[in-house]
């Protein structure tokens, strides 16, 4: 299972800190 981040700003900060790209999945399906 993927560790989906739910806090966008925290995840983008993580991406910046770790120098990794981010995938943002917008969904209306039940999670």
């Amino acid at each position, binding site marked *: 299972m993927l560790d989906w981040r*739910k806090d966008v700003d925290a995840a983008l900060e993580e991406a910046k800190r770790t120098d990794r790209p981010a995938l943002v999945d917008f969904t209306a399906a039940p999670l």
Partner: protein
Amino acid sequence: MYPDPRVEALIRDNLVPIRIDVRGKPEPMERFNVQWTPTILLLGPDGREHHRIEGFLETGDFLAQLLLGLGHVARARGKWDEAIPRYEEVLARHPDGDAAPAAQYWRGVARYKKSGDPAELGATTQAFKERYADTPWATRASVWG
């Protein structure tokens, strides 16, 4: 959800995955200019968008789009030695998908940017004469040859 283990592995090994449930929460959609779901964005580490996938795709096409997007992120950062193999992976593993002609085009751009040799662009024009000739990407590359 992504039931295919190849998709999970590609995301886990290369990306920080963020999921936004848009139901009743329009703010993130407005922030990223998203009007429809499913929409997937690939952002660079600086938060800039480099690739957008809109609508449902079969697994193979989805994998190819993720690889294409990773290529775009690397290319935008001037990391030619990361970008070119991403595009080549699209062409090798998903040659019949929608992402392949785009990968062939952007591989040519990345090769040219890496070497500074315009012959790379001409070679790409030639490659389009051999494959993907009937795609809009061939037209875009036609001015190079």
